[in-house]
């Protein structure tokens, strides 16, 4: 059989395969370096970074739920300078694409981060997190109001020369409206979904399970919702879509690709299987061989 092509193109850049991690579930790769092969995924996506350090939320920050979990980390991060000096420096030694996830409290903070990252050659893409449900100001406010999403997309477009992915929130009535808003102001790609706002109560303690009361739901529990949204968005815009939400194996990944995603990301499941990305990549090629498919692009968006 002839060579299988698993590579996909995203905003003019080639990814050796369409599999990456979802932001916030893999640190900057560094934390998993001894457990899995970081060169294998098509890209690595870093945890959200803001201009100055963020303390994040009080604990408990995580709790398990059926086939998933809730988190309310609150975007704790060491700030851009430490991130560049330590995490980005580490990623210089990794042979794959790097996507830096950006967060901010204000439009100005997002702009500051995007502008500073222009100077960093190791950054292949920016992913703008306008959809974190766990911080009070900024973040989600930009991702749920089409007017504000347009404004921030436009402002960032003017500041960055890097391919810009806007990460969408599922906590809206019509996600395609937000997708179109981002596209109209110059987003190069979209990623979805971020977590769904949820809650758990500890009945023994008669308290909220998370100190933040609510948190973002992720994992297989959200997969059908995510898939439906990826399908809807892929058919509403022309720019490529990165699909995520509960992906665990190659079959799940194929559902998202068939629904229209150009690439897929694995999030919470990496906590269960640090090699999940590699298992998915191998599962995709095995499936291609079985189906006598020579190019993965042939199944993207077939539905």
């Amino acid at each position, binding site marked *: 059989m002839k060579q299988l092509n698993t590579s996909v193109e995203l905003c003019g850049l080639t990814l050796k395969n369409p599999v990456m991690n979802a932001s916030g579930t893999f640190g900057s790769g560094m934390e998993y370096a001894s*457990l899995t092969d970081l060169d294998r995924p098509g890209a690595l996506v870093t945890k959200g970074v803001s201009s100055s350090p963020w303390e994040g939320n009080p604990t408990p920050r995580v709790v398990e739920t059926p086939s998933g979990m809730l988190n309310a980390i609150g975007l704790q991060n060491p700030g851009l300078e430490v991130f560049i000096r330590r995490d980005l420096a580490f990623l210089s030694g990794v042979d794959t694409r790097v996507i830096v996830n950006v967060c901010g409290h204000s439009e100005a903070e997002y702009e500051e981060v995007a502008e500073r990252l222009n100077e960093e050659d190791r950054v292949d893409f920016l992913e703008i997190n306008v959809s974190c449900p766990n911080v009070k100001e900024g973040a989600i406010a930009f991702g749920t109001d089409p007017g504000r999403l347009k404004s921030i997309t436009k402002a960032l477009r003017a500041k960055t020369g890097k391919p810009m992915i806007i990460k969408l929130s599922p906590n809206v009535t019509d996600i395609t409206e937000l997708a179109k808003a981002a596209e109209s102001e110059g987003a190069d790609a979209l990623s979805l979904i971020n977590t769904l706002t949820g809650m758990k109560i500890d009945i023994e303690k008669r308290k909220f399970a998370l100190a933040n009361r609510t948190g973002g739901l992720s994992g297989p529990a959200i997969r059908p919702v995510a898939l439906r949204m990826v399908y809807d968005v892929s058919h509403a815009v022309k720019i490529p879509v990165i699909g995520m939400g509960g992906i665990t194996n190659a079959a799940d990944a194929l559902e998202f690709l068939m629904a229209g995603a150009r690439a897929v990301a694995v999030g919470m499941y990496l906590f269960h299987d640090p090699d999940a990305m590699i298992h998915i990549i191998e599962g995709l090629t095995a499936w291609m061989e079985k189906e006598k498919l020579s190019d993965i692009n042939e199944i993207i968006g077939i539905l």
Partner: protein
Amino acid sequence: MIHKAAEVLSVNRLGEDIFELRLLSPAAKEATPGQFVMLFPDSPAYLLGRPVSICEALPEKEELRFIFRRVGFGTAAFSRLSPGTELFLTGPLGNGFPLKEARGKVFILGGGIGIPPLFGLGKELKKDDSLSLNFILGYRSKAEGLFLSEDFSSLGDCRLTTDDGSEGFPGTVTDCIRSLDIIPDIIFSCGPLPMLRAVKQYAAEHGVKAYLSLEEKMACGVGACLGCVVKTTGTDPHSGVHNARVCAEGPVFDSEMVVL
């Protein structure tokens, strides 16, 4: 650090809800006292690993010993494992106790299900003849089971306390240490939060260094998700903020560095 299936060697019931699990895993070769592993229930609905302290590692036999309390789905599943089956494990994780800091009179204070990791610690410290080891171990009651107490008595001076007075000193571990007229040179401790708070306070009052092993809810166990943090008194060098990761910088912390 590995993420691999480990073979179950044995599961024994030691008390009402207390179980001992022995696994065959090469992780035993790397482990130091106070480290832990993530144990994964075999279930598509319960995906997160359960952090469990290594009670004892036998590197030559590649054997890990754990003692756990059955509290929910995961620990109930572990209690039903049969020899020869496998379960996934990530580890060894975390920093472990700073063995080099041990000197003179060492107090090792354990409470409830915080007791198991102190056994591996005691075994290691016993190799140093210059140390005198004092163990104070707090249990709920004799009925719940005085797990590991016999193992500990072979290591040094060992006092037991029970909340209900059914065995040994009636009261808490810190009540017991305050009733003694010896001031230790260093304290190692693991147990429930109220106990660790009391140990921290005792250590501060007497100007003694104390190392405490903490617990927090975890998702990744390897420092990636920032789920398991504890507030720190100073800026943590890794996070750049006043938070340290229990799974990575911990679980063992200098009591003066953390806000409990």
